[in-house]
C-alpha cells in the first residue's frame, strides 16, 4: 500500500453528491455503512411486531378441529378482528411435522413454490394418534413426538423423546396480519413506506407474520445464515450491535463487518437448537424479508420471527440428533449436489485476470512452482462491456483455444455471468429477453431498469419457469460463443444487487411473473437464478453425453433453501483481515448446519492486501473449506501463491497439497452430504453432542467425523489453545503422535510454527488419502491411496471411501464404488459399503487404483514390532517405521507403516496384523 494520507481532491460537484463522495473517500475507516441498510425500527412491519405481545388475540375454535390420520385442521380466530385463519398440522414419516397458518378463505397470499423443495415428501405421512382431548386442548402423538395444542390462547407445545422441544406462542408474540381495506385511520407505514430516498408503495397493505418459538431447556441455537457472527447465536437484546434482530434479506453488503447480526447475501430460515440429549430443527419456509430475535432466559431460548408477507409454513425436525435433523431436512429440501471432483480442488480467481497472456502466465506459474490447482476464473472484465456471455475481443481474442490449452493439463475455466442484463438493443441476450418479456417489471408493469456493472440494466425474472428454461438454453456450446465443455459458471450479484435500488437491491413493489410482488419472493431470486444457470450447464452436458451428462458447476453468492441441490456458494466480499479469517469458520459451519455444506470464504480476503502470514494462515484453513478458492479485489496487489517469497510459497504449496492429499476423504464426505445431508465441516458438538463445554466452540471444527482442525487466526502466534473433546483419542496429523488421552474435554497448549496449523486424527476412524502431489485432480486419477488407520481405545477403527468418475451422473445408476474399511481384532477388512435406503443403486464401478500404504496410529507397543499378513498370502511383511504423511512432516518416521501392500481398491480384502 502506498501511504497517501491526503484526502482526495474533488471536483466541483453539488453538495449532496459531494457529501456522499466524502463518505466514500473515508470508506476504509467506516467500512460497512449502516446508514445504507435498514434496521428493525426503520422497518414498519418489524417495528409494529417486535416484542409486541399480540399472541393472546389468537384462539382455536374447538369445534373446528378435524383430525384425519396425519392431518389436523382447525380454525384460528383473531379475536379483535373476528378474522378466521386456517391452521393445518401434518406429520411426516421423514422425521418432521409441519404447521401451516393461512387466511380462511384464502386471499392468495404468497407461498414458496414447491420446486424449492424436492418432490414426493408430501405423500410420506405418518399418522397422528390422539392421546386426549379436552375443552381447552388436544394432545397428539406421532412416532416419538408429542404435540399439545392449547386453544385459549393458541399455543402448541412439542416434546421429542419425552423432552420438551418447542413451544409456539408461549410468550404471546404470535401474530398474523390479515389483508384488509385501507382506512383513513391506518397508522403510517401500512400502505406506503419511504426510506433512503426510495418509496415502497405497498399496494396490499400490512400482511406481516410473527412466530414465537421457544426452545425449553436449551441455551444454544444455531443457523439462520448468512451473517458474520458467532456459531452459537447471541441474544439480540444486548449491547449494540446485538440489540438488533438477525435479518434474513439477501443483500449485497459492501465491506461487511466481521461481527454483526446484519444479514448478508443469502438466507436460509433454518435454525437448530441443541442441548444435551436433543437437537431440534425449525424451518420457516418463507421468502420475504424476515427478522429473528433471540433472547436467552434462564432455562430456555426464546425467538421471535417476523416476516413481512407470505404465510406461516413451519417445519419442525424431530429426529433428535444433529445428524438426524439434517438428514430429515435433506429428505424435505433435498441433499447437497454431488460436485464434480475438479471443483473440490483449488480455484484461482482474481478480479481480474486481464487477458489471455495473463491467464497463460498464471497457469504456468502453478506448474513452475509445483502448486496444484484445478480452475482459473475470469471476473467481469473478461466480457464485452459487462455483457455476460460475450468476450472482450481485444483481451480474449481466442477464448476457446485458451480453455482447450488449460484442459490439456486437466484444468478448467470459470467465467462470471450475472443476472443484470445491459440495456443495449444490440446485445442479443438483452434483445431476446426484452422481446419475450423475460424481465422483472417495475410497479407500473414496464421492464425494470436498474443500475449495475454495465450501467442501465434489466433483470431476468427467474421466478418464472419459462424464463429459467430460456436462460438455461443460453449455455449450450452453440449459444455461448467462445465456450467449451471445460467452461463452468459463476453467478454473482444475484441477491439481486441493484446499485441504485433501496438497500442496493430491487424495490419491493417490483413485479414478477403472475403479478407476484418482489417483496414476497426476494430471497428466492438468487436460488432461482443459480438453478437456471445450473440447468443450462446440465443441458449442455446432456447434449455431449445423453446418457450420463456432466454435473454442473455454478458458484452463487445469493442463496436460499434449495441452493444445496444446485451448487456451492461463497461468503462474498470479505476482507484481508485476521478477524475475517476467524469469522469465516462460524460462517461456514452455520451454513453447513442450515443444510448448505458446499461453501467457502475467499482465501486471502477479497478487499485489501494480506501480508504473507495472513495469506499463509488463510490457505492453511482454506484447504479444509468445502469450496476452496483464492480471490482478490481489482485494486489489490497481485497475490498468486508464489509472490510472497520462497518461504511463503513453500508453506502455501504445502497447504494446497494437503487439500489434494485429502481429496479421497473429502469426496467421500461429499457423498455423505449427497445421500444424507451431513455437513462437510462440523462443529465439535455435532460429533460430541453430549459435551456441553463444546456447544459454543467455533474457532475449531471437525472436517467430517475424523479430523479436527484448529486454524491459527492471529498474527505472530507461537502457541495456541486447542480444545480436544474428551473420551476420544487424538493423533497429531503431522507426526502421528498420540495426545495423552483424557476422559474430559481439555484445552491443550500446542506449539505452532508458520508451517502448519494443528490438525488431529480422531481415534476410531480410517481416512483415505493420496500422498502424491499432482498438478490437478485429473492428474491424480490413477494414483494409489494411503489409508490412515487411527485406533480408538478399544483398538478399532472404521472408515469409508467413495469414488466415481468424478464428473458425470453415471453414479446415479451405479457407476461408483463405495468401500467400507473396518479394523477390529487386529484385522483390517475392506468390504462394500451398505447402500443407504431410498433408491440408491448398488455401486458397480471398479477402478484400477491400489492402496500403496496403510499407516497405523495407536497400535499397542510391541517389543519386536508387527508384521502384516496380506490376503491369503502366507508371507508376512513387517510393518516399518515411516512417516505418517510424506508432505506434512518429512523426516519424521514415528508411524507404523504397511509398505506397498498393493491392495486393489475395488475389491474385498483382509490384512491381519500380528505381533512378531
Amino acid at each position, binding site marked *: *500500500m*502506498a*501511504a*497517501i*494520507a491526503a484526502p*482526495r481532491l*474533488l*471536483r*466541483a*460537484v453539488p*453538495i449532496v*453528491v459531494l457529501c*456522499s*463522495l466524502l463518505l*466514500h473517500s473515508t470508506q476504509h475507516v467506516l467500512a460497512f455503512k449502516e446508514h445504507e441498510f435498514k434496521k428493525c425500527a426503520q422497518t414498519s412491519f418489524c417495528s409494529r411486531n417486535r416484542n409486541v405481545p399480540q399472541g393472546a388475540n389468537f384462539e382455536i375454535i374447538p369445534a373446528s378441529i378435524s383430525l384425519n390420520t396425519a392431518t389436523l385442521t382447525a380454525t384460528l380466530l383473531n379475536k379483535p378482528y373476528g378474522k378466521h385463519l386456517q391452521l393445518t398440522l401434518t406429520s411426516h414419516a421423514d422425521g418432521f411435522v409441519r404447521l401451516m397458518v393461512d387466511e380462511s378463505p384464502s386471499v392468495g397470499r404468497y407461498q414458496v413454490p414447491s420446486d424449492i423443495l424436492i418432490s414426493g415428501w408430501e405423500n410420506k405421512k405418518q399418522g397422528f394418534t390422539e392421546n386426549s382431548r379436552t375443552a381447552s386442548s388436544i394432545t397428539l402423538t406421532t412416532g416419538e413426538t408429542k404435540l399439545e395444542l392449547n386453544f385459549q390462547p393458541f399455543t402448541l407445545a412439542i416434546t421429542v423423546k419425552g423432552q420438551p422441544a418447542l413451544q409456539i406462542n408461549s410468550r404471546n408474540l404470535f401474530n398474523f396480519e390479515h389483508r384488509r381495506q385501507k382506512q383513513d385511520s391506518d397508522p403510517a407505514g401500512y400502505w406506503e413506506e419511504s426510506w433512503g*430516498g426510495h418509496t415502497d408503495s405497498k399496494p396490499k397493505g400490512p400482511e406481516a407474520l410473527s412466530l414465537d418459538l421457544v426452545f425449553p431447556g436449551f441455551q444454544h441455537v444455531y443457523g439462520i445464515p448468512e451473517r458474520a457472527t458467532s456459531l452459537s447465536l447471541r441474544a439480540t437484546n444486548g449491547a449494540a450491535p446485538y440489540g438488533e434482530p438477525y435479518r434474513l434479506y439477501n443483500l449485497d453488503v459492501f465491506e461487511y463487518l466481521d461481527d454483526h447480526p446484519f444479514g448478508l447475501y443469502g438466507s436460509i430460515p433454518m435454525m437448530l437448537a441443541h442441548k444435551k440429549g436433543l437437537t431440534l430443527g425449525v424451518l420457516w419456509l418463507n421468502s420475504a424479508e424476515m427478522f429473528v430475535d433471540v433472547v436467552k432466559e434462564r432455562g430456555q431460548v426464546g425467538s421471535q420471527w417476523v416476516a413481512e408477507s407470505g404465510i406461516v409454513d413451519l417445519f419442525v425436525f424431530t429426529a433428535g440428533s444433529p445428524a438426524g435433523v439434517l438428514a430429515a431436512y435433506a429428505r424435505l429440501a433435498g441433499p447437497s449436489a454431488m460436485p464434480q471432483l475438479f471443483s473440490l480442488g483449488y480455484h484461482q480467481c482474481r478480479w*481480474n485476470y*486481464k487477458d489471455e497472456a495473463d491467464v497463460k502466465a498464471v497457469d504456468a506459474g502453478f506448474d513452475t512452482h*509445483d502448486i496444484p490447482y484445478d480452475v482459473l476464473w475470469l471476473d*467481469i*472484465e473478461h*466480457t*464485452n*462491456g*459487462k455483457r455476460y456471455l460475450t468476450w472482450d475481443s*481485444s483481451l480474449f481474442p481466442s477464448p476457446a483455444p485458451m480453455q482447450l490449452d488449460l484442459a490439456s*493439463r*486437466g484444468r478448467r475455466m470459470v467465467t462470471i455471468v450475472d443476472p443484470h442484463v445491459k440495456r*443495449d438493443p*444490440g446485445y442479443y441476450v438483452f434483445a431476446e429477453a426484452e422481446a419475450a418479456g423475460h424481465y422483472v417489471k*417495475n410497479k*407500473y408493469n414496464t421492464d425494470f431498469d436498474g*443500475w*449495475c*456493472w*454495465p*450501467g*442501465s440494466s434489466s433483470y431476468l425474472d427467474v421466478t418464472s419457469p419459462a424464463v429459467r428454461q430460456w436462460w438455461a438454453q443460453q449455455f449450450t456450446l452453440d449459444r455461448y460463443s467462445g465456450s467449451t465443455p471445460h467452461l463452468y459458471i459463476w453467478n454473482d450479484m444475484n441477491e439481486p444487487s441493484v*446499485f*441504485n435500488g433501496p438497500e442496493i437491491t430491487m424495490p419491493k413493489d417490483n413485479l414478477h411473473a403472475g403479478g407476484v410482488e418482489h417483496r414476497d419472493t426476494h430471497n428466492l431470486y438468487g436460488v432461482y437464478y443459480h438453478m437456471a444457470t445450473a440447468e443450462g450447464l446440465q443441458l449442455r452436458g446432456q447434449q455431449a453425453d445423453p446418457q450420463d451428462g456432466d454435473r454442473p458447476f455454478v458458484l452463487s453468492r445469493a442463496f436460499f433453501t434449495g441452493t444445496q441441490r444446485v451448487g456451492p456458494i461463497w461468503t462474498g*466480499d470479505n476482507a484481508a483481515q485476521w478477524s475475517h479469517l476467524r469469522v469465516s469458520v462460524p460462517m461456514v459451519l452455520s451454513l453447513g448446519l442450515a443444510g448448505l455444506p458446499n461453501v467457502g470464504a475467499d482465501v486471502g480476503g477479497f478487499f485489501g492486501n494480506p501480508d504473507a502470514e495472513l495469506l499463509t494462515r488463510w490457505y492453511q484453513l482454506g484447504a479444509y473449506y468445502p469450496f476452496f478458492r483464492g480471490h482478490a*479485489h*481489482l*485494486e*489489490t496487489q497481485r497475490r498468486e501463491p508464489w509472490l510472497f517469497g520462497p518461504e511463503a510459497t513453500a508453506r502455501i504449496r504445502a497447504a494446497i*497439497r494437503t487439500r489434494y492429499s485429502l481429496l479421497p476423504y473429502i469426496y467421500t464426505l461429499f457423498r455423505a452430504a449427497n445421500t444424507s445431508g451431513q455437513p462437510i465441516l462440523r462443529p465439535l458438538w455435532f460429533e460430541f453432542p453430549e459435551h456441553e463445554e463444546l456447544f459454543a466452540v467455533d474457532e475449531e471444527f471437525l472436517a467430517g467425523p475424523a479430523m479436527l482442525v484448529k486454524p491459527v487466526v492471529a498474527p505472530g502466534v507461537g502457541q495456541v489453545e486447542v480444545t480436544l473433546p474428551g473420551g476420544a483419542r487424538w493423533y497429531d496429523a503431522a507426526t502421528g503422535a498420540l495426545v495423552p488421552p483424557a476422559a474430559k474435554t481439555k484445552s491443550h497448549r500446542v506449539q505452532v510454527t508458520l508451517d502448519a496449523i494443528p490438525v488431529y486424527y480422531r481415534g476410531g476412524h480410517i481416512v483415505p488419502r493420496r*500422498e*502424491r*502431489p*499432482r*498438478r490437478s485432480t485429473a492428474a491424480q486419477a*490413477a494414483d494409489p491411496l494411503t489409508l490412515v488407520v487411527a485406533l480408538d481405545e478399544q483398538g478399532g477403527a472404521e472408515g469409508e471411501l467413495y469414488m466415481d468418475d468424478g464428473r458425470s451422473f453415471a453414479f446415479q445408476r451405479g457407476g461408483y464404488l463405495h468401500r467400507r474399511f473396518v479394523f477390529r481384532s487386529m484385522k483390517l477388512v475392506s468390504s462394500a459399503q451398505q447402500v443407504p435406503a431410498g433408491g440408491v443403486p448398488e455401486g458397480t464401478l471398479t477402478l484400477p487404483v*491400489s492402496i500403496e500404504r496403510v499407516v497405523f496410529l495407536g497400535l499397542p507397543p510391541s517389543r519386536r514390532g508387527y508384521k502384516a499378513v496380506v*490376503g491369503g498370502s502366507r508371507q508376512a511383511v513387517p510393518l516399518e517405521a515411516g512417516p505418517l504423511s*510424506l508432505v506434512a512432516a*518429512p523426516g519424521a518416521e514415528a508411524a507404523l507403516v504397511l*509398505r*506397498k501392500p498393493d*491392495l*486393489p481398491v475395488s475389491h474385498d480384502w483382509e490384512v491381519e496384523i500380528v505381533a512378531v
Partner: protein
Amino acid sequence: MGTFTALAFLAGLALVHGNVIRGLNPDLASYYSGVGGSFKCISGIAKTIPFARVNDDYCDCPDGSDEPGTSACHNGRFYCRNLGHEPRLLASAFVDDGVCDCCDGTDEPKGKCQNTCLQASAVHREALKNKISQFEQALATKAEYVSKAKAFKQELQLKSSTIDDDVVRQQGVVDHLKGEVTRLEQEEAQRKAHEEAQQAAQQAEQQAAEAQAAQQADQAATEQLEPAAGSAVAEERQLQEGITQETQPEEREETPEERGRRIASQWTNDPAAAAVPGSQGDVNHEEEEEGQQEEGHYDGEQPSGDYSQGAEQPDEGEEYSGQQTYQPPRPDATTPLGEVRARLYDAERLLERLQKDKQDIQTYLRGNLDFGPDDIFLSFADKCFTSYQTRWNYEACFFKNAVQREGYSNSVTVGRWYGFAPDYKTMYFTGGDECWNVGPRSLTVTMSCGMENKLSDGEEPGTCRYAAKFTSPALCTDAEVEELRQQLRNLEAFEQEVRAQIAKDEL
C-alpha cells in the same frame, strides 16, 4: 488381485531395465551404482534401503532420491535428457500424470507422447534469431538517440551566446503589443457599453411578458397530465433520466444514475464511476456510453469498462513530453483588434520558445548534469514515463522529478532528480514529499536494455521508498547481442550434432 500385483511388479522391473534408471540425473549417477545391493538416501536422514527399492514406485527416502523415475515421492526430481533441446529436471508430480512435460516424452509411459525436442529447439532457435534482430534494431535506435542528443546539445550551445539578449528583445516586442491591445480593447469596450445599455432596456420589457405566459402554460399542462393513466410512468421516466425541473445545484438529490454510479464506485474506487454525468472531465465518457446504446453495436469495440480502471488505462509505460500545456487558439486576425491580438499571440509563442531555450541551456548545458556515455540520456530531456499500476500510477521525468498519482486528482512527489549510478543502470529521485515518521520519499529506478522505452512495475517495497523499472534501447550494448549470436552459433552446432547422433542411432 494376483494379476494386479504381477503387473505392478513388471512395471517395477521395467524401470531399472538394462541398468538405465528412469529419470536419473546423470550428475547423480554415482549414487546409484547398486554396489552391495543397497541404496543410501542421498540427503537428509541417513537411511539405507535395498537397491531393489529404487524406482519401485514407493517412496522410501524422505528426500525422494530413491524414486527419480516415478511419482511416488512428493519431492523427487525427474531428469529428462531432451536430446536435441535442453535437459530438464521435472518435479516428480509431473511424472506419469497424463501430460507430456518433457519434449522427449520420457516423463510419460512409452507411446503417450511424441518426441518434440527438435521442434522445441527450432522454436528456440527462431526465438533467438528474432531476439537478435530486435537487439540489432534496438542498437540502431540507440545510435539515433546518441546523434539526437548530440544535435540537441550543439543547438543549445549555438543559442547560448545570444539567448539572454534574444529573450530581452522579444520581451520588449511582447510588452509593446500588449499595450496596443489594451488601448484597442478599451475603445471597443466603451462603444459596446453604450449599445448594450440601450438594448437591455428593451429586453427587460419583453421578458416580463413572456414569463407570465409560460407560467400559465405550465399549470395547464400539469392539470392535464395528472389524471392520465400514464402519468406515473412519465414521472418515473423523468426520475430515471435525471430530469428534475427546479434543480438548484447545491441542494438537488442524486439521480438514480448518480446513485448507481456512486454505489458502483464503492467497489471500484474509480472516480469515473462515481462522477456526476456531464460534469467536467466525464463528458467524453458519457457520450461514448450513450453512443453505444443508441447505435446498439458491440462487436469488436473496446470494452466500455466503465467502472474498472483497467480498461481505460493506456498501455503500461506510456511516454509523453512533460511540457504539454494548454495552448489557446490563435485569435482571428480579420478585425483590426484581432490582427494585433494575433501578432501578440505569435510574439508570445516565440518568447515562450526562447524562454524554454534559456531554461534548457540553464538545465542541460550549464547545469553540470551527467547524461551518461555519449550524453545518450540527453535524448530523454523533457520526457516523462508512466508506469500504470492497479491503483497508483508512477510517473518519472528525466532530470526533473517523479510523482505517484492516484486517479486523476491525488499526487505525491516521490523524488526529485538526483542522478545515475556510476554504471548507469540505476537512476535516483530523492528528497520527495515528506513521509510521516520516515522522511522524504525517494524513488529508485533500475534500468535495463529493452526494445522500447517503458517504465513499469512501480511499487512501494518499503514505506515511502518507491521502486520502478525502466527499459530502453539506450541501455542495450553490443556485448549483449554478441552473447546472443554466440548462443545461436552453439545451438546450431548442437543441432547438427544431434541430427548426426540420431542418424547414427537409426543405423
